[in-house]
């Protein structure tokens, strides 16, 4: 069998305990069902869409911001090189927004810079996440996956009012 020095055993045991606690916290937060603060799961929408007919398929035939409850909105976005539809979005402070996005061409990234709103948008798939806008101000939505030579122009403004 393998021979391990006493100190190395202690080192490994401490390491393993730390690792298990860390993974437990990551896992609990990722799978917690609590809305808002508790849940930090990775955006993993399984919905499919034909990339060729996105603009004829609901809800992407009418991209935009729709109120669906008290200070609760759905933001439907279509991404393509090099722009977001809709652009220049206004959202009331404190609103919870369910973002749904897809791409009609290549792979894009949806990022609201400086926040945890961040997801990949791959053609053929819908991706979605929920974000609550607690702070007022101008936010920058940008594409964070290379999508062609105009990639650095792909951005829009989001105003929380």
């Amino acid at each position, binding site marked *: 069998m*393998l021979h*391990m020095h006493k100190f190395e055993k202690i080192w490994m045991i401490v390491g393993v305990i730390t690792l298990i606690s860390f993974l437990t916290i990551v896992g609990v937060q*990722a799978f917690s069902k609590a809305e808002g603060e508790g849940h930090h799961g*990775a955006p993993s929408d399984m919905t499919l*869409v034909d*990339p060729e007919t996105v603009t004829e398929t609901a809800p992407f035939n009418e991209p935009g911001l729709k109120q669906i409850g008290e200070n609760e909105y759905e933001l439907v976005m279509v991404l393509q090189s090099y722009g977001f539809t809709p652009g220049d979005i206004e959202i009331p402070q404190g609103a919870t927004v369910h973002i749904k996005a897809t791409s009609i061409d*290549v792979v894009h990234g949806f990022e609201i810079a400086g926040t945890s709103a961040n997801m990949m948008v791959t053609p053929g798939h819908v*991706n979605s996440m929920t974000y609550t806008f607690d702070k007022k101000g101008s936010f920058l939505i940008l594409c964070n996956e290379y*999508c062609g030579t105009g990639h650095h122009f792909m951005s829009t403004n989001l105003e929380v009012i």
Partner: protein
Amino acid sequence: MKINQLDARLSLVHFYVAFGSILFAGLLGLVQTLVRSELITLPSWINYYQILTGHGVVMALVFTTYFIFGFFYASVAKSAGEFTNRQRKAGWIGFWLLTIGLVLAAVMIALNEATVLYTFYAPLQASPFFYIALALIIIGTYFGAYAVISRYRLWKKEHPGEKTPLLAYMAVATLVLWLIATIGVVAAVLFQFLPWAFGWTDTINVALTRTLFWYFGHPLVYFWLLPAYMAWYVMVPKIIGGKIFSDQLARFSFVLFILFSIPVGFHHQLLESGISEGWKFFQVILTFAVILPSLMTAFALFSTFEIAGRQKGGKGLFGWFKKLPWGDVRFLAPFLGMLIFIPAGAGGIINASHQLNQIVHNTVWVTGHFHITVGGTVAVTFFGISYWIIPHLKGRILTKKMNKIGIYQTVLWAVGMGIMSSAMHISGLLGNPRRTQVTSYNGHEVASSWGAYEMAHAVGGSLLVISLVLFVIVLINLAFFAPKGNEEFPIAEELNPTQQTPNWLENWKLWIGIVFALIFIAYTLPIIDIINNSPPGSSGFKYW
């Protein structure tokens, strides 16, 4: 014992291409930092993303692969004996396939036919010849792997019942990892990208290409790292006048790296649709298991340092630390590599956890991360290896003067990389995206804080290129002008040579069986899901 001259030549050609590649790709990297910081604008005949593709392909696939095979040929010839004619021939075929692939890829990128970055994500569609070039590079490595593994097996036949040389064992372990990892990218290139790029199929399954790519992409980083670990485990102890702490644990950690570096690619796809959260988390757990061999390695290395330092008269809790040969670049460079790996590894843990990845995914933080891992830890260790291996292979010596310039070069690299990657990490946290030509976004206020960091990238990048120029100057001296002599090929002895190394560590069928079982568990259901529940495929786009 000198290495057979024919083997030395095979090893040297790989090193020469590696050094040329890193200098060239380093210059491309500097241009990128200058463009991003808006200090220069590019002429109309070349675009930023072309340069970025060149930088990524040449650094990640060309420099590393050539260096590693050069290092493996020399290490195996040294520790297990000279190659047979047939094995050496396979090595040369590998070299030429790699080189044809390299030239073809370079031509395609230069012609602006393959501006798809080194990850070549579909449905951006490059010229089919770019994918052929990638295939040639990988097939070339299979010939090299054959040479190394077949020499190792021959050694076993020549020495029945004996423990194999540690260096050869580690080279074989790294190649086992490589062979299993490349299955993913070979499948994607042969069955998806090539038929699609030639127009034989109209569309491509994007999610599948990405999954196959990252099945390969994560172990790829361990393919870079494990040769550096070989130098840490086997060569550094000899250089500092110490011994290998434990042969069996060194072997065991390499085995664990094979097991836990492959079935983990989903942690690169955490923010992606089409893969369920449960499978993502399962692979995150396997990803973190790789911390175990890393902790073992850290313990073994620092024990070696302490034992060697105390033998030289180091007193007290940390007195041994001062006794280490700080003025010897053969030690200093790999040591800096280990030191850098502490924050680099911590960054990796951040990237692989759900919540933290949400903040940093696809920001320039990630660029900072792989610049201190492969560009920091791996690169400086490779510098340290180069300073003795080139004179050894050429029958020359590392002179005091070259050693001194080597120290300046290594420190300059560490400082430059420190400045550049710190700025990348910090501005990534502020949202600054990676892979982006300029980040001013029409003067948007959120982006306004990033400019200063872009400037720091340019400062760091400039230091890195100066360091590379010094590196190449020293190597030219060591290869062609340094005094003739016999530079040591450092291979340390074991601390406890009587300790038995269990036979099961060399039972490759067992380890390969376990790794395939893990891959099967981690990937089968999600891949079936990706194929069965696939959207209509994507046609190719050429947005450049």
